[in-house]
């Protein structure tokens, strides 16, 4: 097992090189060099910033050396300094990361809690009226533009009912709160962003749960369990559920990129001080180093999610033997 974990972890290295290569290509995509596009016309970007960027890319060196330098920078998580406040990009991202993680982990939690029972009940009553209605509802959730859903929630629960705050994570006055009050305030503020984030991936996960459950219910050992007269409840929840849950573990990693993409929009709308909003602000301000840093870190997070999912899968499923 340890052997597998080490080998699986090492597989990340070629992936990182691939990611570096793609981002390098993007950086050189535009005609001219990476310092001239857009910023050439933008007086906000001073000459010194352009000179810094030129130095960072080593643009006077051969292309292969440039890529080597780029790889080195990424390996050291050095994305240069922000154009806006000249602080190291990685510090800016580190500040924003906890908010993004909090939002997405909370959403993941909600998605699992809802999707597993929905998936099970749809599979048990496959092709019934309930299953069909559920399918349509889930697809509608999947087809709903998240920015629009967020605005509707703000309009209804924020403005009309006034139940939830519509923006922000930690207002200035939490300093005067006791510890429990500030936790309560935070949870309260999480409700609308988490609801929007979960809606996106709920359909995905519950469909997976449904087909995984259907697959298991077809197995011979389920027929045996039924044949020996077990109640339907025991068959489904004791015999089938355990095996049906296994593939769902890995799905977390598949919806992670979608969740992170979602936080770009959701954090922007709800004023959530996370990485997605940092990315949006940096794009809007032509803050090129920060934009690049956010994209690369978001991709690292996805890779990390994949790694964790693969390892958990190997640990929880005894049928899988890695040699």
């Amino acid at each position, binding site marked *: 097992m340890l052997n597998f974990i080490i080998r699986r972890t090492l597989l990340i290295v*070629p*992936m990182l090189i*691939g*990611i570096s*290569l*793609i981002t390098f290509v*993007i950086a050189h*995509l*535009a005609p001219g060099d990476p310092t001239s*596009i*857009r910023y050439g016309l933008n007086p906000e970007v001073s000459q010194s910033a352009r000179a810094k960027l030129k130095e960072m890319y080593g643009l006077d060196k051969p292309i292969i050396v440039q890529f080597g330098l780029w790889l080195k920078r990424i390996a050291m998580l050095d994305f240069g300094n922000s154009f806006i406040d000249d602080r190291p990009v990685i510090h800016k991202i580190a500040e924003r990361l906890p908010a993004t993680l909090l939002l997405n982990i909370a959403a993941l939690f909600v998605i699992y809690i809802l999707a597993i029972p929905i998936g099970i009940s749809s599979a048990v009553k496959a092709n019934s009226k309930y299953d069909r209605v559920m*399918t*349509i509802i889930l*697809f*509608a959730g*999947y*087809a*709903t*533009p*998240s*920015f*629009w*859903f967020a*605005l*509707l929630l*703000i*309009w209804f629960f924020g*403005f009309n009912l006034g139940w939830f705050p519509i923006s922000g994570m930690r207002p200035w006055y939490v300093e005067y709160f006791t510890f429990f009050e500030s936790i309560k305030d935070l949870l309260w503020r999480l409700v609308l962003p988490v609801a929007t984030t979960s809606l996106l991936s709920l359909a995905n996960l519950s469909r997976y749960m449904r087909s995984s459950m259907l697959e298991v219910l077809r197995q011979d050992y389920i027929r045996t369990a039924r044949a020996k007269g077990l109640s339907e409840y025991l068959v489904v929840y004791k015999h089938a559920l355990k095996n049906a849950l296994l593939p769902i573990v890995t799905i977390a990693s598949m919806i992670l*990129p*979608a969740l*992170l*993409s*979602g936080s*770009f*929009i959701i954090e*922007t*709308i709800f004023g959530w001080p996370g990485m997605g909003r940092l*990315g*949006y602000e940096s*794009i*809007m301000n*032509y803050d*090129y180093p920060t*934009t*690049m840093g*956010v*994209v690369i870190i*978001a*991709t690292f997070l*996805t*890779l990390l999610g*994949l790694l964790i999912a693969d390892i958990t899968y190997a640990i929880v499923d005894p049928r899988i033997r890695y040699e």
Partner: protein
Amino acid sequence: MVREIFRNKQIVLGLVVILFMAGIATFAPFIATYSPYEQNLSPEARIQPPSREHWFGTDDLGRDLFSRMVYGARTSLSVGFIAVGIMLTVGITLGVLAGYYGGWIDFIIMRLVEVMMCFPTLYLILILLAFLGPSIFYVMAVIGLTSWMGLTRFVRAEFLSLREREFVIAAKALGATDLRIAFRHILPNALAPVFVSITFSLGGAILVENSLSFLGLGVQIPIPSWGNIISTGRFYIESAWWLTLFPGLAILITVLSFYLVGDGLRAVLDPRLKR
């Protein structure tokens, strides 16, 4: 097969809505009751609720919302179809190359697929647009170029299972060229998953285009897009609900129809799901 497709209620419902939207997009100039660009800045014309003259109300510049949404259908559908066209070209070509030739070509293409799948798509799209500048053509290209990976995997898998079959060997023995075998003999057998993928991708592309336009990085004002109408509506959400509600519903209904057709097709075309 065709009869089965048209007996599936989900597919028929989705197709009817899609055709309806496509009709609106095609005949936009005849359907729109006003010009989508004509402004009327007098206070009694701006931000008016739905009425008999303005079915969906008016926006902050006094433009008729219904007419803007009719033209918005044009924007969304054309972005969707062109983006998916690009996705198909790239996805099928790479899938065919990987599945038919195998070896190091397959190795490189599949590693590229794996790396591309790790990027959160929206971030990748946004950084590309931040570079290239917002333009409707870049939006189409970028959506297409960031969504082909699933299709490549499908096509490659189909090719791997089909390329050793007798009919392929027979074609080879008759001296057919690689190109002919790949596209005339094998690809038609692999079309089912391609059709499913097309419908889902169309829905997805429309959703992404509208999200980008909402963020101000997609279709630029004054060209109407459902997404950029909502980005204006956002500032008036307390008072002018119609500016947010109607375009959002249009996106939801259109995307949902594509997904319903896709899901229905998958059920009809995949014999394993038939029971």
